């Protein structure tokens, strides 16, 4: 009986309408935003697994002092590729391109994004970049070893395939820009009648803010990487002191993009949390406008704080305190969000589902990451902890503990809508617990290591750091096990799970009003919107 109902809902869903192509071509030639969202999701998860593997190997090398499983050069390549894959191919597009594509049109009551073909093109750019990045592993000269930041002058001198890796990042930039302009146009032009700006779900707001950052920051990275490639190919000398250039200019240009990019990673994550918390505490979101505006102001502040990556690189005293001050200001909109989420939970009737567990861990881990960020932002402390494991711990807490956990939360929250099935709740909770414990065992010791002076990016360390490194490596195994439990559960449930129905969580946003999985054109008739997104009364 249940199976019949399910095959009915599948036949009327977008999975059944494959257009004029069959098999895999019905996916890679599809312009349906839901199919493209799933294409992105699968490719992003694949690159995530590549990145996790590289990370595990690095941790394995650091299990004991001295050379254990690889030499220094290999280790340099591993941390470079780990960074490139995780940042450019996983976390920047993670929530934005996958769930953004799938749910943005649904949440604003549209049938598709504004430019469906450009949408598909952006996925092709993304895949090209991904393949190029992986190809550096086998390219002559070996994989890049200059870190994901490609700092000059080393990135100019080294014989490894920096140009290819930089070109991959250049291409993925195109994909990011195209997604951004597509989403902005979609939000401006395709909202359902009555969907005023302040009736949009907060996930849409966060995607909107993210898209502006993508559009206004990514081109700067593109031109910087292009100059790096020219530097290596023709020796133009912009960053080469022997020719009158200045390596610091590379750092400035690089961080003018790459700091805002941090907000490309975290803003959609905050949007996901703002969706999940009201649904699982059955209360309307506290401070809707404050959260919406704080997204926009985080995007705005993001542009003017890049200098805090360069406190020790050589910068005037004025520039230092100014960048420090501005960095502290970012904590205000971030704090606004955290307080509003907690206020939403207060006196709600809370269901402790897996998406909420991931969201609560997000708040906890993001707060640790954010507060340690303030320690980095203070010029005096920064000099002490610059380029140590403290920084590594800090950005893993905000990026993985923040954006990564929100990605997992979104994966569970929207799983029933995307597949029409429920995942196994108990296994999901075991997975969450393992991931959460593993994460903290892996990254918390790094705070201590960094504070005690262990520099990042070395394959070896003095004996006194042995214990903490060992604990950290054990944490990496726990974390990997947790991720495996989570993914296996989801894959298995997508084939065998119980029928989810249209609205298993009792959500109030528009995507829960259509069947699961959604039909090809999303809505039989475009809905008229007459109230806010989180009305639980």
């Amino acid at each position, binding site marked *: 009986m249940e199976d019949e109902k399910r095959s009915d809902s599948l036949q009327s869903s977008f999975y059944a*309408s494959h257009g004029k192509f069959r098999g895999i071509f019905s996916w890679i030639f599809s312009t349906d935003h839901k199919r493209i969202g799933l294409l992105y999701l699968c490719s992003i998860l694949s690159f995530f697994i590549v990145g996790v593997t590289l990370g595990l190997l690095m941790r394995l090398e650091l299990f004991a002092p001295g050379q254990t499983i690889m030499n220094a050069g290999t280790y340099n390549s591993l941390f470079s590729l780990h960074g490139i894959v995780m940042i450019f191919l996983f976390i920047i597009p993670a929530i934005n391109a996958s769930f953004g594509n799938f749910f943005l049109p649904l949440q604003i009551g549209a049938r598709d994004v504004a430019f*469906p073909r450009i949408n598909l093109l952006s996925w092709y750019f993304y895949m090209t970049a991904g393949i190029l990045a992986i190809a550096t592993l086998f390219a002559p000269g070996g994989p890049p070893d200059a870190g994901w930041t490609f700092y000059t002058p080393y990135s100019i001198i080294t014989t490894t395939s920096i140009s290819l890796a930089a070109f991959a990042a250049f291409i993925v930039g195109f994909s990011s820009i195209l997604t951004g302009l597509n989403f*902005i146009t979609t939000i401006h032009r*395709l909202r359902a009648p009555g969907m005023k700006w302040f009736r949009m779900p907060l996930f849409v707001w966060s995607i909107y803010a993210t898209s502006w950052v993508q*559009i206004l920051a990514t*081109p700067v990275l593109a031109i910087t990487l292009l100059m790096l490639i020219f530097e290596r190919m023709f020796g*133009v000398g912009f960053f080469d002191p022997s020719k009158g250039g200045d390596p610091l200019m590379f750092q400035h240009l690089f961080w003018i993009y790459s700091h805002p990019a941090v907000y490309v990673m975290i803003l959609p994550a905050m949007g996901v949390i703002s969706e999940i918390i009201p649904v699982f505490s059955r209360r309307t979101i506290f401070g809707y406008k404050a959260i919406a505006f704080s997204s926009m102001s985080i995007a705005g502040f993001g542009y003017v704080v890049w200098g805090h990556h360069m406190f020790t690189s050589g910068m005037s005293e004025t520039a230092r305190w100014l960048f420090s001050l501005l960095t502290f200001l970012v904590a205000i909109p971030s704090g606004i969000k955290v307080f509003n989420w907690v206020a939403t939970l207060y006196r709600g009737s809370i269901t402790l589902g897996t998406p909420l567990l991931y969201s609560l861990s997000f708040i906890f881990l993001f707060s640790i990451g954010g507060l340690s960020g303030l320690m980095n932002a203070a010029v005096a402390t920064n000099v002490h902890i610059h380029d140590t494991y403290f920084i590594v711990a800090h950005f893993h807490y905000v990026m993985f503990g923040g954006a990564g956990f929100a990605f997992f939360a979104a994966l569970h929250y929207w799983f029933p809508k995307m597949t029409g099935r429920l995942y196994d709740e108990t296994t999901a909770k075991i997975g969450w617990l393992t991931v959460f414990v593993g994460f903290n065992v892996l990254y918390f010791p790094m705070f201590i290591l960094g504070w005690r002076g262990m520099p990042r990016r070395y394959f070896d360390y003095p004996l006194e750091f042995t214990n903490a490194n060992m604990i950290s490596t054990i944490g990496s195994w726990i974390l990997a096990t947790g991720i495996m439990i989570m993914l296996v559960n989801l894959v298995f449930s997508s084939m065998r799970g119980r029928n989810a129905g249209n609205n298993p969580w009792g959500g109030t946003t528009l995507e829960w009003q259509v069947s699961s999985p959604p039909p090809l054109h999303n809505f039989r008739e475009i809905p008229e919107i007459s109230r806010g997104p989180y009305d639980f009364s």
Partner: protein
Amino acid sequence: MESERTGHLNQEGQRDYTGSKMGMWLFLYTEFLLFGGLFLLYAVYRTRYVEQFHTAAASFDTGLGAINTVVLITSSLTMAFAVSAVRKGDRRRSVSALFLTILFGMGFLVIKFFEWKAKITLGLFPGAVEMFQLPQGEVIFYSLYYVMTGIHGLHVMIGVLVLVGMMFLLVRKKITEKDFIKIENAGLYWHLVDIVWIYLFPFFYLLT
């Protein structure tokens, strides 16, 4: 494919002219920022090597630069003609205006080619031995010249290709007085190429 038909249409099933144009403008912002990175470098190095930028800029042929400026601005005019002709329903005139635009664009590239060639024969290019004997500021100036006009030239080439595509669409009646957003967006792109040059010209030729 069915979903494809909904693509450039809005909720009511009409063509979304404003939406398409908005997308194009957003794309143009990204282009400005792309060149912005280069202009930033130019500004920094100009303040660092004031004298040497003067000397190097003096070696450029202002006449050729001025001719190229006129060529490119005129091409923007013919581009505007092409768009307004389509809007009035005169596709034939639009095709000829586009043809002129393409000619001007290629003329610009030809002149640019001879300018580059003149400098390269003098051994003034990144990596050349002669370059190393120059003061550092001049090396940076010439490198900036090649990279900035080079990337601009690449944009001219892409623009020409896009305009050829537009001509093709005009002839095949894919662009009409009711549906002219493609040629209008192509025109916007062409004007961007023009406006970037309007900044490049004084930076490398006039500010001696």
